[in-house]
């Protein structure tokens, strides 16, 4: 086979597959060590804006994952995501409160789960995120609402033992016979 033919074959090979399995753990560790040194050098060159962009992208991907496959947590996913969002952009949370025209006290209460965000808060957050993500990545305007209501659904389902006995007392199906 001529070298030109070999080049073409290998280039086409790139299109169909890569086998890049490590032959041993040592091989993996050695590569990892060299790669880490090079990466740390490159990381030093990241600008503050690029780091913020990465954090916002990470947050968006986490929220997408939560919407797709919600996991019940004892803590609030919504406030955890909101805290990450604010802390990625602002050095002081009060500045975010000012930007969406709410009091720092209200924001603090929401972040500490002492108060539910009302619709007005969610709408302002939606618009704030739309503008923030404009130059980061695609960010759907329904994302914050989806996270918030997904969490509510998770909470309701996970806490059935607590609310169901009382609530069931108030529910009867008087037309059950007709339905069957």
């Amino acid at each position: 086979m001529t070298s030109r033919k070999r080049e073409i074959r290998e280039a086409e090979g790139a299109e169909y597959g890569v086998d890049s399995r490590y032959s041993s753990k040592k091989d993996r560790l050695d590569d990892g060590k060299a790669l880490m040194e090079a990466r740390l050098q490159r990381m030093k060159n990241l600008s503050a804006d690029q780091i913020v962009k990465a954090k916002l992208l990470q947050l968006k991907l986490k929220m997408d994952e939560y919407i797709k496959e919600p996991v019940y947590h004892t803590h609030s996913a919504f406030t955890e995501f909101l805290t990450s969002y604010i802390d990625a952009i602002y050095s002081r949370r009060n500045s975010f409160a000012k930007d969406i025209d709410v009091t720092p006290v209200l924001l603090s209460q929401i972040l500490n789960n002492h108060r539910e965000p009302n619709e007005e808060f969610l709408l302002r957050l939606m618009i704030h995120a739309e503008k923030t993500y404009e130059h980061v990545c695609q960010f759907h305007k329904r994302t914050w609402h989806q996270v918030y209501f997904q969490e509510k659904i998770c909470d309701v389902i996970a806490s059935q033992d607590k609310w169901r006995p009382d609530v069931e007392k108030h529910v009867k199906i008087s037309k059950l016979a007709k339905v069957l």
Partner: protein
Amino acid sequence: MVVIDTGTGTSHKVEIEPVDDRDFASLTKARYFFDWKQEKEFEMYKLRIANTRDILGLVSVERIPEEWRLHIRLLTVSKENKGSSKKFENIAGNLLTFISKIAVREYGELACVSLKPKGLIARHYIDKFGMNVTGLTLSIEILEIFNLIETYDHD
């Protein structure tokens, strides 16, 4: 994400999902070039056109959290999508972007996806995906991932 029909130029939306046990019967070496059953213990993903069953591409990865890295073990497109007569474009790019998004979700600005191809194949990955070179290892980190997402992550 979409693949492009090279014959018509039409875009088709794709789905990338974990490989499940029922898939292995169809993952032959003749069509997917590697023995994918050997990869069962690793994370594996398949790419299909949305609402169809035919698998057009596969990738297996190893997570290395202590290095904030995902290492691609195997990556392939199906036989009819190989070379200059391929049916669909963008399969490998979509798979790489999908893995990169997992890396960013897990590790944020420290995210890294690596692979270690041989010979001219490496050149192709460097040119096409802007990969960094460290010895024989190629990697994409956050800046390259931004570019990949911009190029491939849209419908």
